[in-house]
């Protein structure tokens, strides 16, 4: 254990959290500022250089979390952009869209990318393999933005409140859009992670994000064995202690410094727009796409 104010708990090697969330006044919870501050405080202590975050509408307050209305999508994106502008040294944002409102979704992507959004967040408004996601994926490929897709690891039935997708659903979309990069969200976020690892093993434009509250032993080993270090991304989602624990577990299972660097930051630097992530070096990192750039104030 380190002394307060000295070495970050996860060391000084660059670290990117590709799956973070924040709240805003319209989220319907009175402690939204405390939770946001707690994320930044814990991030500082862990040593997270860049948080790539989203706000999903009103988080259920005025329209359902996973089926946000256009007005709530816009309000959430505005709040997220404001946070990234308030903390340009630390925070970047995804633009959240609801694919059921295709025109609005495309307009939001254009509007928010102009203001600095570096990726697209898809929640659970429409199954990932649905044709309605194609225009979103087209935009992602054209603009060089990765798509973070909320995933339920192995969909064995429908669950209320969301139109859930699993690794196989996302794989179908990714195969249709080989020029886009897709992030399979929170392998530890609920469901059977072994199914997801198998479902996307050979789909090379799908990256697995290690976030989520689940810390099952064997999960990291299998994810690594399935897709290799070059397709794993580090993140926390709603529990940051599990993120820190997973970093340490990756070391414990024997990954070397180079592979750990891939997971900590290099893969993110590759799939997000060039120079988009604060404090993250890009020299020596070959971008997955080089035909699209996003202007981000540094």
């Amino acid at each position, binding site marked *: *254990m380190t002394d307060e104010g000295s070495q970050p708990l996860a060391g000084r090697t660059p670290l990117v959290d590709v799956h973070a969330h924040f709240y805003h006044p319209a989220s319907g919870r009175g402690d939204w500022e405390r939770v946001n501050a707690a*994320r930044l405080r814990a991030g500082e202590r862990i040593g997270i250089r860049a948080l790539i975050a989203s706000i999903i509408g009103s988080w259920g307050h005025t329209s359902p979390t996973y089926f946000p209305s256009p007005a709530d999508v816009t309000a959430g994106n505005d709040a997220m952009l404001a946070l990234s502008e308030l903390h340009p040294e630390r925070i970047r944002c995804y633009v959240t869209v609801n694919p059921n409102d295709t025109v609005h979704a495309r307009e939001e992507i254009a509007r928010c990318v102009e203001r600095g959004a570096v990726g697209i967040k898809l929640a659970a408004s429409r199954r990932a393999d649905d044709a309605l996601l194609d225009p979103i994926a087209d935009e992602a490929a054209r603009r060089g933005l990765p798509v973070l897709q909320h995933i339920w690891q192995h969909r*064995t039935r429908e669950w209320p409140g969301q139109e859930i997708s699993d690794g196989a659903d996302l794989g179908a979309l990714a195969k249709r859009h080989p020029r886009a990069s897709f992030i399979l969200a929170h392998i530890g976020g609920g469901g059977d992670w*072994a199914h997801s690892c198998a479902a996307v093993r050979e789909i090379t434009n799908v990256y697995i994000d290690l976030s989520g509250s689940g810390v*099952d*032993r064997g999960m990291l080993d299998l994810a690594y064995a399935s897709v290799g270090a070059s397709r794993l991304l580090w993140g926390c989602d*709603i529990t940051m*202690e599990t993120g820190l624990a997973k970093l340490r577990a990756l070391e414990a299972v024997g990954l070397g410094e180079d592979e750990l660097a891939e997971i900590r930051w290099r893969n993110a630097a590759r799939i997000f727009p060039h120079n988009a992530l604060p404090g993250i070096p890009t020299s020596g990192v070959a971008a997955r796409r080089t035909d699209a750039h996003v202007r981000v104030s540094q």
Partner: protein
Amino acid sequence: MIDVNCFIGGFPFRELPHPDPDVLVRVLAREGLAGAWVGHLPTAFHRDVTAGNEALFEALEPHRTVLQPVPAIRPDWPHWQLALAKAHADGARGIRAYPMQWGMGAHDARLAALAGACGEIGLPLVLTTRFEDVRQRSALDVSPDLSGAHIRALVRADPNVHVVVTCAGRALIEESHWGLTPDERARLSWDISWIWGPPEDDLAHLVQTLGADHFRFGSAWPLRLMQSPIANIELLPDTLRSSVVAQLGSWLT
């Protein structure tokens, strides 16, 4: 510092890497822990716990300075009192019970009798809220999570029993704790294996509202990473970390 929530043995619904006592000893040393209370994971899913308990004691025998057995006693099984007495005589550190896996309701008199017997011999009764997140369970794994009603009933069953509940989250902890009298609460503690850290800061909240003395270090190894509760403690706000560390032991300093 002791991990009160470890197992050895396999899990019926997924492969666990190396759930063996010698590996557990090495993991405890790597993480700076002095020892562990250890149950036998397959026994939680057996009808008759006898063979699993025997396997547990035998497997831990070479490691007894570090690994302390916590066998399961099923109070609806013939001669369970004899099994409890033998476990006590053989050096059990606590007694595990799995009412949800055994289909026993919160107010089952046999569970109350087990609580009373544990209180009488001074062994804590260790309960497991869940083995896996509900969202990933096999269709064959139909037992629900442990209920607050079970916890409250067992604590109330005997004035001497001490109950340790593992793998619980904030909601279950709060409904159980605040649903008991101060005297009853004093005999109920929780492991921190499944309590969320930042940014929700459930662990910090619970330490502040219930008191650090109600919490014990636990990991649910080999089901879950032992690094997670350690990280949770390290990420506590500065004002709380020292008191929690002092309460849980001096293992982080």
